[in-house]
């Protein structure tokens, strides 16, 4: 009987042991009769159960540790029981023998095969397996927990507690790798005091010690076929070179990782298509992971257009289908937690962005979703320091994309050193000039970035005072949590007003044809690090309509971050010029 969708399967079971080929073996099961039937069919004897019932986390810990410390074949059942009690002392356990359940027949082979296929390349809760079966129109009559457990016995899948205990008995989440936000209280489902809940990955469902995760690596390979992406526009020479190099990285398969270090607005997605096409041609599966849902929504149709004959799935918090079959998956990083040794190529877009930065859990998930010899391609305009160091040491191959698709150089930020500029009672001359040139001469819009939410309204009021009666119509503000954020952004995109004051929430994903950027308090080092300043500057000059945009950094003094950001932008312009990728403005 398949469990109802509304019920969560709580794994509670027993330890058991038996003798097979003269060797003592220990196992755990929620339905010991199934294991007895399995092992006795293979010649096992002396099958015995140990009470009490345990949750999966505790059972798994005991069995893992009894094997890792060496299971002496000469142990008697009583001695084995004592060994387990010694291991289980931290959980306050004492065991007693109980009669074993009668052996049960094996589940139907056809149903085992169906479940095995649906689980391939994934790491799922039972309810997720159920959902995957339903989404793919597969009906089974046997108990799903029994089918999955039988696959585990056959060695066709792995069975893990969602929150397990390491060798020292400390809990950790096997789904997201988290070790910090683990909550312990008596569990109403399994009744155990030693049932931990991981609060780090709650958005994907509750990971607890009494919930089982079933994992199976993807074994099959797709057929090889020639694949060539279809682009609406021809690639710029800089893109073409990078495209060829990433395709070579995948085709040769020698390097495990590669970094595509591209300037903002360079057209990284088209370059990534080179790697995707090379992998798909070899019958491999590809994951394109991004930290932001908006990017997944934007990239998915572009990839569908580029690869019309390929099954592509988009996965993020709002997608209803979570388990579609696909050779190319575009997903937010959180959705990647459900994959297990599935992909030959993992492309990480904006690898420096939240939630990847400093979040080891998501790196853990990205490593786990890759096959054993799978490759990783990082895409970013602002690689994190760790990758930069590896690139400088030549331990990480780098493909540079130093020019934008339109062939004009990146706007270089102008640094304005202004002390107490808000207290002067008038707009300082450099800023007057900046706004006049932007709004009047260039007829462009201006995004003004400030470091904190509190400064947004303050700066809006300050700027409005210089626009006279039109102030309120000309200057608006928004930040991540502001209720009217979407409305203000939509109006700004439409060109309803020229000046938007905002925080770094808008540092990525904004593309407007005629846009200049002004960063106030740019020496606020906690918020405006080098990479953030480069991303902010990268909002300007992205379109061929207005490539010569203006960028200004305003600060009391030039911080090292401001200087490094300017240096990096100049370095890319220089590289692009040397390679002949740049047009002149004349």
């Amino acid at each position, binding site marked *: 009987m398949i469990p109802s969708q*509304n*019920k*969560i399967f*709580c794994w509670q079971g027993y330890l058991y042991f038996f003798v097979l080929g003269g060797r003592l073996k220990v196992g755990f099961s929620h339905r010991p009769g199934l294991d007895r039937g399995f092992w006795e069919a293979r010649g096992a004897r002396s099958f015995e159960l140990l009470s009490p019932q345990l949750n999966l986390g505790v059972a798994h810990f005991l069995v893992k540790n009894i094997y890792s410390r060496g299971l002496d074949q000469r142990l008697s059942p009583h001695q084995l029981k004592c060994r387990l009690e010694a291991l289980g002392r931290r959980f306050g356990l004492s065991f007693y023998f109980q009669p074993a359940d009668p052996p049960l027949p094996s589940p139907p082979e056809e149903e085992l095969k169906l479940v095995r296929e649906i689980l391939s390349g994934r790491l799922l809760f039972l309810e997720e397996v159920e959902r995957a079966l339903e989404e793919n129109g597969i009906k089974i009559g046997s108990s799903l927990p029994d089918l999955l457990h039988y696959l585990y016995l056959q060695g066709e899948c792995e069975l893990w507690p969602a929150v397990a205990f390491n060798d020292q008995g400390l809990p950790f989440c096997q789904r997201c790798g988290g070790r910090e*936000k683990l*909550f312990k*209280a008596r*569990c*109403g*489902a*399994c009744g155990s005091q030693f*049932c931990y*809940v991981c*609060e780090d990955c*709650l*958005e994907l469902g*509750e990971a*607890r010690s*009494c919930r089982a995760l079933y994992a199976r690596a993807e074994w099959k390979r797709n057929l090889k076929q020639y694949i060539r992406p279809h682009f609406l526009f021809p690639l710029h020479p800089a893109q073409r070179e990078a495209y060829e190099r990433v395709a070579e990285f995948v085709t040769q398969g020698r390097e495990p990782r590669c970094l595509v270090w591209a300037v903002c607005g360079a057209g990284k997605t088209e370059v990534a298509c080179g790697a995707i096409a090379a992998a798909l041609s070899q019958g491999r599966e590809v994951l394109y992971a991004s930290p932001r849902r908006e990017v997944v929504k934007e990239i998915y149709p572009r990839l569908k257009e580029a690869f019309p004959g390929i099954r592509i799935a988009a996965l993020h918090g709002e997608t209803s289908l979570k388990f579609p079959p696909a050779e190319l998956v575009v997903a937010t990083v959180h959705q990647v937690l459900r994959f297990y040794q599935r992909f030959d190529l993992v492309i990480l877009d904006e690898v420096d962005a939240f939630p990847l930065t400093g979040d080891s859990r998501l790196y853990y998930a990205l490593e786990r979703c890759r096959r054993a010899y799978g490759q990783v391609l990082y895409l970013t305009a602002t690689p994190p320091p760790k990758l930069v160091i590896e690139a400088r040491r030549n331990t990480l191959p780098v493909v540079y994309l130093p020019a934008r698709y339109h062939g004009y150089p990146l706007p270089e930020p102008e640094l304005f050193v202004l002390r107490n500029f808000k207290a002067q009672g008038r707009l300082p001359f450099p800023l007057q000039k900046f706004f006049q040139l932007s709004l009047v001469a260039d007829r462009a819009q201006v995004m003004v970035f400030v470091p904190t939410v509190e400064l947004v309204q303050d700066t809006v009021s300050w700027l409005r005072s210089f626009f006279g009666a039109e102030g309120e119509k000309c200057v608006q503000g928004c930040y991540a949590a502001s209720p009217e954020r979407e409305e203000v952004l939509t109006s700004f995109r439409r060109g309803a007003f020229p000046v938007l004051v905002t925080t770094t929430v808008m540092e990525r994903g904004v593309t407007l044809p005629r846009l200049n950027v002004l960063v106030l308090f740019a020496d606020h080092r906690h918020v405006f690090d080098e990479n953030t300043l480069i991303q902010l500057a990268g909002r300007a000059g992205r379109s061929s309509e207005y490539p010569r945009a203006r960028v200004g950094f305003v600060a009391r003094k030039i911080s090292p971050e401001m200087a490094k950001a300017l240096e990096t932008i100049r370095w890319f312009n220089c590289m692009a010029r040397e390679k002949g990728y740049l047009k002149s403005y004349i």
Partner: protein
Amino acid sequence: MGRCSFCVRWSYGGILCPNCAGALEAWKKEFRVCLLCGRLMSKDISLELCPRCLEEKPPFRLARAVGPYRGLLKDVILEFKYKGRRSLYKPLGYLLAQVVAAEPLFGKPHVIIPVPLARERLKQRAFNQAELLAREVGRLLGLKVVEHILLKERDTTPQAGLSRKERWANLKDIFTLEAPSLIKGQDVLLVDDVLTTGATATACTIVLLQAGARSVSVATLATGVF
């Protein structure tokens, strides 16, 4: 300096940042509290009791809540109760303890009892939010918490979404008490997450009073608004 328990932003003192603390208190400008059941009424209504209590007084002595079931408080309760973010019991328990400590009419209860979940619902949710709250309130106020004596015999349709009449019918003869000697002659503080119609609190109170409790008062995180 630490992180706000609700929005996770850095704040200088207390468990909540000034924004979240302000959001939780904002209702006080708009509403007044029914002196009996603690539900909120517009300040335009000059009565001391709400229309429901005027019509029929509830069996509990009084009830109070942290605030109305809306806005930030509602979001946090949903995160706590339905998403299972159990660690929120600490800041929420703190807020609840503050409400009890600040209301002199609560006096000093002898014992705290959480509203129970039926066995099936407890297995499904894996935790009882009222229990976690009750333990934290008991710890902060130095009061004894008695669990697993007030029992819910069977699972009922979740109260959320039912009309007032349907809620009353849903809870008929649902709660029982084991070991009544533990609460005989005692002032009991009943703790739950949300009080809407008061049907659950009333059903529990009746059982406790029939078992010999001297009085029952109710503390919840959120309450309804007239």
